[in-house]
Structure formats: C-alpha cells, structure tokens
C-alpha cells in the first residue's frame, strides 16, 4: 500500500498534527500569545480558533510565566495543553515552570502524576532576529532530567513527532526550526501516522563519514553530502530528531561503519548538542574512530544583527564539505 501524502510547508505540517490531535482528544488545548485570531507569530495555528473555538485556542496577555503555569498546572490534572512560546529566546522568562515544575513534578511527587504538556518554540537564525530572537537553546533542556526534547528538521517529521509529543505523557519541549517552517516536504495524511521518540533518521547512506546534524543543519549536511558524492566521498547524514531520548545506537552503528564523525548543530559550541554526542561517541565508540571527531557549531557569541555577520558564524554546506574532507 502506498502512503498518501501531501506537499506542504513545515509550519503547515505542525498545524495539521495539532488539528488532528485536537479532533482526536478533547483534553488537548492551545495556549499562547497571538495564537488565536492572529494565528501565531509564524502562523502555525492559523485557522484553529475558527475550528475549535476560544475555549480550546486560548490567546493570552504577554505573560510567559502565566502561560506555562497554566499549561503545566492543567497537565498535572490530566489535560493535554500545547503551549506556544513565541520565540525560544523568551523561554528565559518562564524557565521556572519548565525546569522546576514540569520537569520535576512526577519524580518529586513519587510518581503520583504525569505532566503531559507540549511546549512549542520556534528557534534559530535566518530572520535577522539578532541577539534576542535567534537563539538555539535546545541543549539547555537536555540537561534537565524529566524533560523530553524534540527537534525535527523537516515537514514530515514535524507532523509525526508533534503527534507523538501531544500523546506522550511527559513534558515535551518541541523546538521548531524557523528555516524548516518554510521548507516543503511530503507529509503523510494518515491520522495514525506518528514517529516514535528516540529514532534517528538516516538521510543518506555511505561508508566514509558519519554526519550527525540537527534542525537547519540537516539540510545543509544533505546538500554537502550530495556535493561530496561527486568527489566519491560517501557520507551518512543522521538526524537524531529527538535529543531526549537520543538514539545513540544509530549514531554508534554508523560510526562503527565509517570510523569518522562530524557533528553539526546551530547552538553555541560550549555544552551544545554536538558536545553531548561527541562525548557519547568518545565514551562508547572510541574504538570505532579512525580520526578525531569534528564539531561544527555557532561559536560562543551572541547572534549579531548584520546579515553578513550572522552568515559568517552559522555552519553551512560549504563548511561541512570542507570539514568532511579533513576527515577523509
């Protein structure tokens, strides 16, 4: 049986997932700033107010703490809220509700409850957002036991992982890459299509170099891998898709085959996603490695406004190509 799909942009795939889950489960509701009538800063929730009404699509004042308090509290008593924080950068305003409340409640209260909240956050560069509208905070949340961290890179995965996030019984922080919002892909229309957490996706096969990439860096890596094919260098591009839980096996198996590892993510280098993955491979797959591990990240610098400066610090296909060659 062939899968029925439709071409759509990333942001539409997320919308479709939310819509299906809201239809499926009355306890799912949306809460956030300008998400209803306006449709959201990136229009992810456009049209959902008309469809589900203002009880279930709740516009709030500019009060991030209250938004997440509401979502986490409601989740503790059995609702399945999807909260939108307009930009990942504003997570700083409401860290309390995520880190000390949502993440801790289940364990701290001896497993009496679960907190099935989904927190959606657009993140990343590419819109001249400068220092306070461009950040990639995903690794911060990997450091907090009790949270699940999801970071899809494309439309299909947006849909499948969003559905899983909503159905999951633990707090999920769902990072939505801004560039991926506008890239189109084939998205399954099956309402039962979900993607389990903890399963990496392999985009290309190869024996030479393993490239592990997240978010916008996945497409950059695929583009680099295609170019490298012409030079007879075959890369395996792997997108973990969820950072917690992380599919270590897929990464280690690939490194076992290639013996070479390049990791690319958009976060600042120190304590980044790439740092964690490099540490895992160094610890558990050292004997596979034929060369040193290379990490490509944004350097440890606030994101500058000027586009030429921004471009200069964000890894891209060209940089990936050059660095793959250093490993071969």
């Amino acid at each position, binding site marked *: 049986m062939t899968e029925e799909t439709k071409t759509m942009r990333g942001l539409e795939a997320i919308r479709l997932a939310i819509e299906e889950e809201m239809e499926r489960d009355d306890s799912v509701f949306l809460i956030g*700033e*300008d998400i209803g*009538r*306006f449709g959201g*800063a990136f229009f992810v929730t456009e049209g959902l107010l008309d469809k589900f009404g203002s009880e279930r699509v709740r*516009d709030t*004042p*500019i*009060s*991030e*703490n*209250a938004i997440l308090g509401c979502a986490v509290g409601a989740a503790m008593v059995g609702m399945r809220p999807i909260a939108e924080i307009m930009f990942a*950068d*504003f997570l*700083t*305003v409401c860290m309390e509700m995520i880190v000390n409340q949502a993440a801790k409640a289940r364990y701290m209260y001896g497993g009496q409850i679960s907190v099935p909240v989904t927190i959606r956050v657009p993140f990343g560069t590419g*819109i*001249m957002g*400068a*220092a*306070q*509208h461009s950040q990639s905070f995903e690794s911060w949340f990997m450091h907090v036991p009790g949270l699940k961290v999801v970071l899809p890179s494309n439309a299909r995965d947006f849909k499948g992982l969003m559905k899983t996030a909503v159905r999951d019984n633990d707090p999920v922080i769902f990072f939505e890459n801004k560039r991926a919002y506008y890239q189109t892909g084939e998205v399954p229309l099956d309402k039962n299509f979900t993607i389990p957490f903890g399963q990496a996706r392999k985009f290309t096969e190869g024996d030479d170099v393993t490239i592990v990439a997240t978010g916008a860096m996945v497409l950059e890596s695929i583009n680099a891998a295609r170019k490298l094919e012409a030079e007879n260098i075959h890369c395996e591009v792997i997108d973990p898709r969820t950072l917690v839980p992380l599919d270590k096996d897929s990464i280690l198996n690939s490194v076992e085959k290639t013996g070479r590892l390049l990791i690319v993510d958009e976060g600042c*280098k*120190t304590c980044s996603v790439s740092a964690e993955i490099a540490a895992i491979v160094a610890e558990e797959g050292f004997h596979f490695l034929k060369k040193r591990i290379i990490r*490509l*990240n944004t*350097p*440890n*610098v*606030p994101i*500058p*406004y*000027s*586009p*030429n*400066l921004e471009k*200069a*610090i964000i*890894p891209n296909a060209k*940089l990936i190509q050059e660095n793959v060659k250093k490993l071969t």
Partner: protein
Amino acid sequence: MKKDELPKDLSSDELINLYKKMLLIREFEQRITKDTGKIKSPLVHAYTGEEAIAVGACAAINEDDYITSTHRGHGHFIAKGGDINSLMAEIYGKEGGICKGRGGSMHVADFSKNMLGANGIVGAGPPLALGVALASKMRNEGKVVLTFFGDGAANQGMLHESMNLAAIWKLPIIFVLENNKYGWSTPVDYATVIKDLSLRAQGYGMKGFTIDGNDVIEVYKTIKEAVDIARKGGGPTLIECKTYRWQGQTTMDADKYRLTEEKEEWKRKCPIEKFKIRLIKNEVFDRAIIQKIGEDTLEQIDQSVKITKKSPKPDINTVLDDIYKNPMNLGGN
C-alpha cells in the same frame, strides 16, 4: 485666534524643538518603512503616531537622566538626543551604526546620551531601570529614570515586581506606559479587565495617572511633575499615555486585526498636527517656519540615508569582538 495655556517654563525655541523632534521621528520612520525607492525597508517596529510620548517625556528630564526603551525604540532614541545617522546605519546593520551593526532596530542604544537601550524582550526594561535608579540613589546623583513600556508589557510579571520594588525603596523612576491599544494583535481590553492601566499604581502604593499620549504638552507636564517628586526622593509614578500606532506591529505585519475606521480615527488625532495648530494659534511659529522645519528635517534624513549607504558592512573578522570586556580565548569552529 484664541491662545491657550502653554507651559510657562518652555521658551518658544523649546516649544518649536518639541515639534521638530516629533517631526524628525515621524519622517525618519516614514523613510525607512515606506518604499520610496530611496532605501529598502527593513523589519522594524515603527513609532509612528506615538511621537508625543517620547518627545514630551524626554523634554521633561535632563540630558544626564536615563531612559530605558522597548522593541519600538527609534522614537525614544531620537527623543533622548541620539544621532539619527548612527541610528539609521544601525537599522541597516552597518558598521557605522550606533551598535556597529550588531544590535539592529530592536537594540538601538546610545549610552553617551544615557539612552540605555531598546530591548527585544517585552517587559525587560523596567527591571533594569530599578538598578539604574538605585545606583543614582546610592551615589546621590539626583538622576531619574524614565522606563518606557507598552500595554502588552504591562502584563509581564517583571513589570509588577519592578513597580513594587521601586515603590518600597522610593526609587526615582517614572513608569511610562505607552498604551497604544494593542500588544501585537491582542487588544488591551482583551488582555486587561480594567480600563485605565494607571489604576495598577494604587496596588503598589504609588501615584498613577492616565493622560492623552497624543498631547505632547500634557505628557511633558505630567512627567515633569513626577520627575520633580522622584528627584526629591518621593519615589516612583506610573503614567499611562493613551495613544495608537499607525503602522502594523512590524513592517512585516499585514495588520488585519485592526479596523480601518479605528486607524483613521486615530490619524485624525495626529499628535504632530495637533501640536502644530496649537503653536500657530499661539503665534509661536508660522507657516514659513513650518515649511523650513519640514525641509530641514527631510534633508537631515536624506543625509542619513547617504551616510548609511556609504557605511561599510561590518568586517566578519571582527564578529567575535566585544563579547567580553576582558578578552579571552573563544571557542569556535
């Protein structure tokens, strides 16, 4: 023609300056947000329609007093005496910008003028203002802080914590609430139950006023009074200025959530036009002077466009500069 009450402490030149400043802000925003073919329009939050607040408020403080600003900060920047060439160059991400192209529209700041920065985080200005006011108090400097924020920011926890702390320590802060009826697409009467947001002041034991934010003189007078109190150690005041933004939330905003009639109604309450008529009535200036001011303003802006276009892009080799005052080895690719 009947003359009305203009503040006696303002000379004709000072009154004309208020007009000039408002017009400069207006024309500046027009130039960068309307596609005239002269320079392309970046993503900005334009201050158009709200000029009387920044200009009236900044006229009521001294040059060495402080302000904190918002994401809609160009007006505050200009009103506090910032240079429009370095403002424009910043908005276009050029090396000649006031923040060397690192900050952009949402982060314009001129510390030489004690303009402590536009801010991309809604509600983040007032907490900073606390510390600035505290420093002034601890050092007996007698300086005050105006902290501008919107009706949207008025619902941030940070703002409420700030009002309370300012009140108990009697910090020299004026909370200048720019109520332009919307926080992005969210109407203020959806986001708050009370009609006048100045009512909030009571809960923190400070005075609160709601005024016409499109009347530069009313803004000036009210802020001046609050400033005098604050300088004497009498503590903070909350001043809600009712106004309206003429343009979308940003230059990218299709602005479909506001009715055309509402927009037109507020354009009829143009703060600049109103003030101009008032100054003519009071014989402070005449059509010839107005014409001249208009021409000078546009010329200044033309000049800024030229300078901005000539200013180089930042050198990518400097991208890691300025992160720390005491340099250290930075990790990177």
